[in-house]
């Protein structure tokens, strides 16, 4: 009896949280998926079909949206990870890091994405501070000479807003890992004649790799599925996927709903693939790093 109680205890403890996750999160995904397959009883659609996916996957507008979203997330996440890791490494050797640490910790957490969008708008738009600075330095002669970085098709403004939020995030995560790596490992490497660069590439980086990959996936997935920043700073066309999905969703004709849900389902499927990679990267890379630390 007691044994049975022990066996079930973790499941009982998990039940409330799982109830919310399954009841809202999974239900939301399943309802959306059902509607994307054409099961939408409210307006009398009951037959399962792949026609919405077929139409969407051959639709040029959707494909450019998909490409745009992938491009934004990939560029911003790759730059954020490289810069963030470099900053974390520099912080490791900085003596007055307390202040730096505090700023890097708090600021990006407290500032929400919509405010980050405003920050970039204040700096990068054609009436923003950067073109003013360039004008006063004589680099440009008029407002119009400054390239449109906001609402532009290359999504520079969107990427800048993500970088502002994500670089400190990566720097802090990686810094925490690097600072906790046992000093003896570095000393052993130094004793054996390794240079600083070799220590970074062959000791520190491999140990921090699982955290780097997992935080890369978190920021990639976030920017891939986010609505606010591309809505505020992105071009009218192509739209980011989440923006595109909401445009379809808010269409007054309910018969349009399945298209929105097909876009959402594709977003979700790509995210599940990312979760799978996340899990795999931990299994392969994270296997023995815990012991070494």
């Amino acid at each position, binding site marked *: 009896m007691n044994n049975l109680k022990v*066996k079930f*205890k*973790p499941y009982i*403890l998990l039940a*409330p*949280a*799982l109830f*919310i*996750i399954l009841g*809202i*999160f999974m*239900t*939301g*995904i*399943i*309802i*959306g*998926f059902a*509607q994307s397959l054409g099961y939408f009883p*409210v307006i009398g659609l009951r037959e399962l079909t792949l026609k919405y996916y077929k139409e969407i996957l051959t639709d040029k507008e959707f494909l450019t949206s998909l490409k745009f979203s992938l491009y934004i997330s990939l560029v911003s996440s790759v730059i954020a990870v490289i810069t963030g890791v470099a900053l974390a490494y*520099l912080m490791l*050797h*900085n003596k007055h890091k307390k202040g*730096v640490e505090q*700023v890097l*910790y*708090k600021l*990006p*957490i*407290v500032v*929400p994405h*919509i*405010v980050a969008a*405003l*920050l970039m708008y*204040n700096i990068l*738009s054609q*009436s923003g501070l950067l073109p*003013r600075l360039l*004008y006063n330095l004589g680099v440009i002669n008029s407002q119009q000479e400054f390239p449109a970085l906001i609402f532009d098709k290359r999504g520079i403004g969107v990427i800048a807003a993500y970088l*502002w939020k994500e*670089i400190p995030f990566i720097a*802090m*995560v990686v810094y*925490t890992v690097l600072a906790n790596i046992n000093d003896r490992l570095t000393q052993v490497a130094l004793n054996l004649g390794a240079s600083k660069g070799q220590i970074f590439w062959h000791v520190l980086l491999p140990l921090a790799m699982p955290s780097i990959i997992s935080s890369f996936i*978190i920021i990639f*997935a*976030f920017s891939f*599925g*986010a*609505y606010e920043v591309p809505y505020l700073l992105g071009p009218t066309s192509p739209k980011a996927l*989440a923006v595109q*999905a*909401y445009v379809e969703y808010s269409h007054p004709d309910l018969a349009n709903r399945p298209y*929105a849900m097909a876009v*959402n*389902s594709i*977003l*979700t499927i790509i995210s599940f693939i990312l*979760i799978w990679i996340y899990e795999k990267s931990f299994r392969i890379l994270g296997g023995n790093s815990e012991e070494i630390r």
Partner: protein
Amino acid sequence: MRKTRSLINNLILYSAVFLLLFPIVILILWSFTKSWPWPFLLPKELSLRGFQSIIRSGNNMGNVVLCSICLSMTVTILTLALSIPAAKALGLYNFKGKRAVKMLILAPLIVPTVSVSMGIHLAFMKIGLANTFLGVVLVHLLPCLPYGVRILTDVFEITGDKMEIQAKVLGARPLQVFLHITLPMIMPGILSAGSLIFIVSFSQYFLTFLIGGGRVITLPMVMFPYIQSGDRIMASSYSLVFLAASLLLLIVLEKTVKSYYKTENHFYI
């Protein structure tokens, strides 16, 4: 050689911090600006117009701030109540399906909540949760739960259950064990998880907008149109109010942690 190198390192580091802080300074300048025409580098005239019109506007600022704090507090308390037992299970026990459960709880961090909320919207309408405070609270749990469970799981892994077992052996009832042993031990974790959860909920725009349907009005809901229309003075003033409110809360929480435990508040993410 070594000196120049560390000089360059510091230069890079501090310019990064500068790039991070500079936009905030510009935001503060804009919120106190009356007029700042092209191509001036500093505002021509300063005023409190932005803040005055926030106070005078029909939005009833006091209520909006109060509603936002009340909403995010409710979300924080509920998330913690769900996360503590779940984190205990994940941190202290080994059981079948542990990996799957862990991934399931972390999933809302990776699967876009925008998509999920569009899926659940109709169901919420049917059962009367759409356009209500409760509905918004429930949907805010999704982005918050992963943080709560993840931070507290780490905490339980570190503290272990030896102390609880001791108390039980000495004859404490489960409630006594929880109140006098478990809770004080995980308190620093609860406070840092709590501040992060609060911020995550406080910052939500889309979820509140969709599920709240314009009935539940939070600070980001009021701010958004100004940012969208590029009204720099108003948007910056609102943003400053938002940042001040969240910073104040973080500082209060951190002070509480420090005074209780003399340890540091860490956001483990």
